[in-house]
């Protein structure tokens, strides 16, 4: 029991572990799946973001280059005209105004002479521009004290580099406060001397609207900075032309990274960098240069923007996973709980059932169960059965042969359950020990009663019938203690008459008296407990003695009787629960005579069973030393008679039994063939003409003819609804 408990503990622990393991594995699997999925999604999204950012940068670059190309082309195409103008200085403002007028992209233009180039006009710079308000082309001179054009970047750089130069963007003060950049190019005169710088101003408004309006992600941050780091385009307008990118990004997270990015940008590189920004949010910075102007375009995309959707999805997935796992845990918890409850319940039930089963098996081990119990005896055919109820009862039977006498008993302990089983065990033991040295049934019963009444603290009692059958003469000595009267089957059936008595264990000094009866050859005794007659169907009707007697009226051997009775009860009870054990004991007495062999066989009305006759006859032949030819003939005759019964006694489809009794003495062998079928006298059938030709002979009719031919006497008797065919073969 301890090891069993341990085992159960272990099973319980194991199932908890299994559940835990299940949850963990499920969680891990879910997490791994989502991680893998997330990893690949992230990768894809990152690639997608790069693609989008890079193509945006490229588009912007192309757009800018397009505008710059256009401006540069305008300037280049006016170099010759400008050169001509060097000799017609008063016409220079005409040239600049034409440049502005003909090229909407150009908002202003100047030809600024190198100071001292013209002695008459040491500084000369006519400037034409489009009035932002009216669109009119106006002209003025830049050669003023306060402007001092030769010091301006657009001038100096062009001279210095001797090439086209794009200025740093600037705000055109007085010109509509718009952001501008200027392309300037040195122009040589006919002698190859740098005479002037020709310029074209362009507004960068288009850049702001183009770059600012093309966002790869709503929250993306498009920016263009100048080669000096001046912010040209940026969503934060206060920074534009006001702060350098270095100043503006002072508060922007990881300064080291920011510095690296800015350096890379300002040295005209392109690439992508990750920067941890403020509030530890990550940003991807994509950047690319506009080489001509030294600008750097960049797109800053917060990771929340790139991975926002996927992160949202992931959070949802995680929530779902957690929810799923919680559900799993809950379900497992419920399952485990209900399993435990069920287990506890079923353990209790099982324990009880186990105890009852043990009680039952102890009980059953105490009663003889081998049938036939005395295979060496041909004077006794005994069968017994306990059909157990759901609950353990206290029925018992027992028998044994001592000194040529059959000692037998049947009993029923009051009550049910384990106590009844214990009393039953005690009763049976008492019977066995008392009956081995007592010689009359009354002595046995009285001794048992005394012992049981003495130790009966629990007020239990036992109804008990005890018999001693002298197998030699059939004298039956019996004593009843409150039990149902057994049925004696002797041609007719009747209950044994009993004198008044009490069950065992009630009155210690009650005197039980023996009674006598005689069993004739072939008589039988049927003993039973009230589980038979008191078997109830669902309408609370009792099986009763009448039904019992009905079943007993058919000829059967002992096993057949008990089977038929059990079947009848089962059919009667139907679905009603069987509340009591049903115990039956059937004793068929075949009086032995000196030198007489008696054999008994019961078969069903089934052709296949006819094969059993061979063994039956060979057994008799061996016992009586009959010669083989005779045995074969007898076998044939018996087979023919039995076949006749099998075929014709019972209506087709109904089950019936055929009993064969053989009696062999030195002079003759006698078979009595009995069935409870339709009245039929085979001896009355006409004999076939055995001399007829093959053509005329009927196919059948030979069976009974053979019986009559082989046997010396064949007679038919109808008795008590039974067909009896008596066949005798003389042996001498």
């Amino acid at each position: 029991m301890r090891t069993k408990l341990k085992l159960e503990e272990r099973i319980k622990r194991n199932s908890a572990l299994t559940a835990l393991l299940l949850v963990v594995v499920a969680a891990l699997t879910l997490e791994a799946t989502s991680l893998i999925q997330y990893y690949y999604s992230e990768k894809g999204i990152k690639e997608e973001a790069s693609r989008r950012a890079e193509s945006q940068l490229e588009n912007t670059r192309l757009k800018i280059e397009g505008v710059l190309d256009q401006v540069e082309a305008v300037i280049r195409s006016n170099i010759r005209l400008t050169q001509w103008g060097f000799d017609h200085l008063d016409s220079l403002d005409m040239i600049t105004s034409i440049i502005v007028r003909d090229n909407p992209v150009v908002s202003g233009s100047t030809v600024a002479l190198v100071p001292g180039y013209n002695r008459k006009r040491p500084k000369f710079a006519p400037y034409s521009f489009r009035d932002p308000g009216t669109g009119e082309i106006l002209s003025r001179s830049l050669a003023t004290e306060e402007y001092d054009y030769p010091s301006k970047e657009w001038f100096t750089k062009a001279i210095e580099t001797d090439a086209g130069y794009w200025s740093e963007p600037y705000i055109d003060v007085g010109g509509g406060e718009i952001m501008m950049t200027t392309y300037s190019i040195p122009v040589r005169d006919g002698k190859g001397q740098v005479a002037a710088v020709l310029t074209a101003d362009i507004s960068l408004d288009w850049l702001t609207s183009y770059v600012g309006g093309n966002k790869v992600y709503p929250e993306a941050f498009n920016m263009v900075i100048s080669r000096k780091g001046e912010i040209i385009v940026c969503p934060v307008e206060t920074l534009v032309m006001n702060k350098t990118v270095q100043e503006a990004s002072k508060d922007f997270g990881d300064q080291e990274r920011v510095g690296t990015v800015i350096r890379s940008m300002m040295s005209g590189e392109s690439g992508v960098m990750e920067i941890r920004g403020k509030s530890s949010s990550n940003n991807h910075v994509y950047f690319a240069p506009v080489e001509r102007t030294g600008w750097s375009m960049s797109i800053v995309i917060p990771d929340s923007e790139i991975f926002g959707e996927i992160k949202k999805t992931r959070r949802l997935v995680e929530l779902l996973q957690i929810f799923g796992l919680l559900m799993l845990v809950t379900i497992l918890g419920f399952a485990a709980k209900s399993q435990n409850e069920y287990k506890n319940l079923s353990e209790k039930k099982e324990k009880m059932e186990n105890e009852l089963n043990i009680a039952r098996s102890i009980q059953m081990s105490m009663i003889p169960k081998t049938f036939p119990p005395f295979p060496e005896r041909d004077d006794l055919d005994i069968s017994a059965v306990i059909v157990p109820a759901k609950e353990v009862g206290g029925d018992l039977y027992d028998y044994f042969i001592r000194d040529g006498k059959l000692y037998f008993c049947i009993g029923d302990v009051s009550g049910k359950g384990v106590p009844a089983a214990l009393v039953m065990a005690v009763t049976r033991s008492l019977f066995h020990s008392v009956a081995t040295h007592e010689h009359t049934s009354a002595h046995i019963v009285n001794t048992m009663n005394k012992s049981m009444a003495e130790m009966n603290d629990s007020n239990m009692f036992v109804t008990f019938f005890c018999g001693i059958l002298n197998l030699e003469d059939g004298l039956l000595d019996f004593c009843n203690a409150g039990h149902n009267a057994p049925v004696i089957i002797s041609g007719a059936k009747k209950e044994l008459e009993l004198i008044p008595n009490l069950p065992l264990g009630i009155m210690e000094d009650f005197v039980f008296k023996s009674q006598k009866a005689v069993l004739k050859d072939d008589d039988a005794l049927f003993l039973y407990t009230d589980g038979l007659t008191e078997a109830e169907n669902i309408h609370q009707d009792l099986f009763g003695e009448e039904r019992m007697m009905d079943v007993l009226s058919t000829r059967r051997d002992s096993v057949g009787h008990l089977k038929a009775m059990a079947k009848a009860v089962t059919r009667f009870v139907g679905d009603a629960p069987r509340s009591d054990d049903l115990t039956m004991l059937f004793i068929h007495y075949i009086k032995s005579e000196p030198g007489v062999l008696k054999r008994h066989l019961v078969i069903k009305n089934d052709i296949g069973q006819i094969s059993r006759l061979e063994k039956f006859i060979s057994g008799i032949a061996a016992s009586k030393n009959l010669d083989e030819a005779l045995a074969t003939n007898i076998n044939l005759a018996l087979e023919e008679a039995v076949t006749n019964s099998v075929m014709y006694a019972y209506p087709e489809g109904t089950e019936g039994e055929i009993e064969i009794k053989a009696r062999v003495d030195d002079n003759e062998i006698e078979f009595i063939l009995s069935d409870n079928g339709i009245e039929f006298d085979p001896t009355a059938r006409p004999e076939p003409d055995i001399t007829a030709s093959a053509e005329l002979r009927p196919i059948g009719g030979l069976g009974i003819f053979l019986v009559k031919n082989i046997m010396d006497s064949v007679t038919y008797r109808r008795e008590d609804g039974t067909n009896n065919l008596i066949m005798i073969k003389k042996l001498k």
Partner: protein
Amino acid sequence: MEVKINKNEDVTTVRLIGRLDTPASQEVGKELTPLQENAAGTIILDCEELSYISSSGLRIFLSLRKAAAVKGGKVIVRSINDSIRNVFMMTGFLNLFEVE
């Protein structure tokens, strides 16, 4: 019970092995009924290994014999033991068959 049928042109030999009791006859009858078609020729019932026959077995023999009578063939019963010979005698079968 076992039956071995061997056909050789118009001679059909049937070896009957075992006990031809009532249950066995039910089976054997089914096996031998088709032989009635061959009854124009010779049917040899080899009973060398047949130990026992009941009336239901005799019926099978007689059925074959009747078919032979109709079709002009013959049925030869070969090597019957004493007890079967006794049964044949009792039932007049000795006159119906060629018993070898």
